[in-house]
């Protein structure tokens, strides 16, 4: 077997090893990378930036830990932005694991910025029902969520003093890994209740949401780790995504090299076969 034939049938374990090194080594050095801003991320940043101090932002954690690597840095960046702008935040989840992930972030962030639960932020928890939950929020927040995640009545939480329905929110951010998710927030919160909706999705699903962005139904969108890194750059707070971009950079480079090698060997072997046939 010639070298090219060996290369064409390269053991996938070698590919796994190369990708492993390409991802692992840059993560060890933790070099933050500033990325070029795209208008779609800039728009969600500007939407939150333009809100007056004390605005109500609803953050829906519509994902589970499987997409944590991509979506959690986005959530952290948006939360930090809201804190810096002194917005009040209400967390909830259309996925069961979502509110717990929000809680994980707030356990670290709230003491740093001296935030008070029930005044500056609150976690409503999870409610099953997807789109109907959002629709129900439009009638009264207490319909789907009579209490917060800890069982405290919303009437006893000062943050809800002047907030009764979804219409009373100034912005909705959905971090979404699928169904139910950002699409349903657009359909109900934006289209029906006219509340601006922005958010973040995984890189593989981002292309499906450009149509909503272009039509103005979606204020802005972060797609994958890159989107999160852009947002971190915008708020000038490098985090997990900015450090992770270095690993993603090398992983993409390796995949591109694999594609080039794969195609080059295929073409050369094909020509060799054709030549031998002619002879």
């Amino acid at each position, binding site marked *: 077997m010639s070298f090219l034939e060996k290369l064409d049938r*390269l053991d*996938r374990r070698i*590919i*796994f090893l*190369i*990708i*492993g090194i390409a*991802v692992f080594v840059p993560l060890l050095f933790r070099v933050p*990378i500033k*990325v*070029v801003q*795209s208008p*779609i991320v800039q728009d969600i940043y500007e939407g939150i930036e333009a809100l007056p101090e004390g605005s109500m932002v609803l953050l829906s954690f519509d994902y*589970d*830990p*499987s*997409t*944590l*690597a991509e979506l959690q840095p986005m959530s952290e960046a948006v939360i930090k932005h809201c804190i810096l702008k002194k917005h009040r935040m209400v967390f909830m989840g259309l996925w069961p*694991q979502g509110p*717990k992930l929000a*809680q994980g972030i707030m356990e670290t962030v709230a003491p740093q910025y001296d935030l008070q639960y029930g005044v500056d932020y609150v976690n409503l928890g999870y*409610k*099953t*029902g997807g789109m*109907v*939950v959002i*629709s*129900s929020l439009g*009638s009264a927040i207490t*319909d*789907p969520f009579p209490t917060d*995640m*800890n*069982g405290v009545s919303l009437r006893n939480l000062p943050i809800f003093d002047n907030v009764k329905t979804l219409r009373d929110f100034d912005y909705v951010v959905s971090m979404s890994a699928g169904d139910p998710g950002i699409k349903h927030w657009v359909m109900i919160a934006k289209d*029906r209740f006219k509340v601006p909706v922005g958010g973040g999705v995984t*890189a593989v699903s*981002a*292309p*499906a949401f*450009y*149509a909503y962005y*272009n039509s103005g139904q979606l204020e802005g969108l972060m797609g994958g780790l*890159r989107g999160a890194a852009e947002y971190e750059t915008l708020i000038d707070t490098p985090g997990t995504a900015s450090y992770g*971009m270095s690993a*993603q*950079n090398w*992983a*993409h*480079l*390796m*995949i*591109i090299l*694999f*594609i080039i*090698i*794969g*195609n080059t060997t*295929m*073409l050369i072997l094909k020509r060799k076969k054709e030549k031998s046939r002619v002879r």
Partner: protein
Amino acid sequence: MFWKRQFPIMITAFVAVVMIVAYFIPKPGFAGTRDNLQQWFLIVVTFTMVLGLLNLFFVSLHKARKGRKEDRFYNWVTIVALLGTIAAGFLKGGINSPAFDFIFNYVYIPLSATIFSLLAFYVASASFRAFRAKSVMATILLITAFIVMLGRVPLGDWVTGWAQGTSLDFLYLPNITNWIMEVMNMAGQRAVLMGAALGLIATGIKIILGIERSYLGGE
């Protein structure tokens, strides 16, 4: 037969019509009925979670006892994990109890994230073996993927940064990537979305009229 077929169809048609009317006529009378139906939906859906749990438990138990010998162990793992997590949730503090937190933060999150991360390795392997320019269409796809992959990471900026802001700005990879995403991709996605929406409306009408009955189960 009436209770199994016609009656559920009548309920479905009534609820669907009420919801549609309430959407287009947001007056208190309609809105009140809509709100009540939404509340009912949330209550019913909550019970489906319990059904799902029971189903998982009994299916796993059956497989653990009578399934393929080599798979039995995994079914026992499912049952123990299920019961263990439920038990942790019922401890003092509920889902904020230290035991539940431990399972969520140190078992569930790492396992779940690891499984999904494995995709990177399979994508790399597949890109080497399957992403090949065997036809004109495959070559177009390959070139597009190539540009987007480069444009989505800082490498694209480093390689073509010299073109940014000059008369050759169109060669700047992040710009080309944005154009591909916002023009070519969006046109395709919009067509898919509209097709799906029309299909959804057609299916909805068929369900309301009782033509589509597969959701009732049976034949």
